[in-house]
């Protein structure tokens, strides 16, 4: 049962990724990416990271990609404004051939790990409580740094998109 769920989710993740890379229209790419991201969220749930599962959906699917879609629609991109990518297929094929050794390397590197059951844990592993304890005990400074980063990103975005005399 778990295997079937895993395979389905993996298929959707890969299909979404493939669709994202190959689609001509950015809007199709973004919609494919959502499929991939939701499938990954499902995989997180399989790995009993339930809080991360929700965060993935809320932040990635609910906010980031929505924002991306919003911007794509907002710009109202026409066919002629899309870059001409005549050698797309060629590049994709060459790139995938080049990347085969890389993949083999990774698989080789990890295949030495001893096998271990990754079933869903019932003892609150990945729940929000455990998560919070680890986050605020071990990772407090990175957490605060991230918040500063988010704030500066917010300010930066506002400054960029503002209509002023330099870039109106």
């Amino acid at each position, binding site marked *: 049962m778990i295997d079937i769920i895993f395979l389905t989710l993996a298929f959707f993740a890969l299909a979404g990724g493939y669709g994202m890379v190959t689609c001509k229209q950015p809007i199709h790419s973004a919609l494919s990416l959502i499929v991939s991201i939701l499938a990954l969220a499902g995989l997180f749930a399989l790995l009993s990271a339930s809080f991360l599962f929700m965060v993935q959906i809320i932040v990635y699917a609910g906010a980031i990609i929505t924002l991306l879609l919003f911007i794509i629609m907002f710009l109202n991109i026409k066919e002629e404004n899309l870059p001409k990518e005549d050698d797309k297929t060629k590049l994709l094929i060459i790139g995938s051939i080049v990347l085969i050794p890389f993949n083999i390397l*990774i698989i080789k590197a990890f295949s030495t790990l001893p096998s271990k059951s990754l079933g869903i844990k019932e003892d609150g592993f990945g729940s929000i409580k455990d998560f919070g304890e680890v986050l605020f005990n071990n990772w407090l400074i990175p957490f605060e740094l991230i918040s500063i980063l988010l704030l500066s990103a917010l300010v930066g975005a506002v400054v960029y998109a503002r209509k002023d005399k330099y870039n109106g």
Partner: protein
Amino acid sequence: MADSILAYIILASLLFSLGILGVIARKNIFIIYMSIELMLNAVNLIFVSMGRYYESMNAQVIAMLIIAVAAAEAAVFLSMIVVLYKQKKSLDSDVFNVLSQKEAL
């Protein structure tokens, strides 16, 4: 199959490869951005699966921090795109090479 860590690693590496492919093969700047997001997700998957493997919550925290970084990245990147697109009327990453030219601007 889902019990073995290798399956997750293979999936993550494939997704990461797809991300790299998108970055090198595509010119559309939106798709390049999405490819980067996909790579981040692949890394997240490795973190989470390894965290599950070693039964450590730290990996999940790192994954969440990555998601937060991605959110920050989205905000800055998208506002940049809006400004650039309004100036150049194109999404071609080759167009945004003002700094490489001598007679810039």
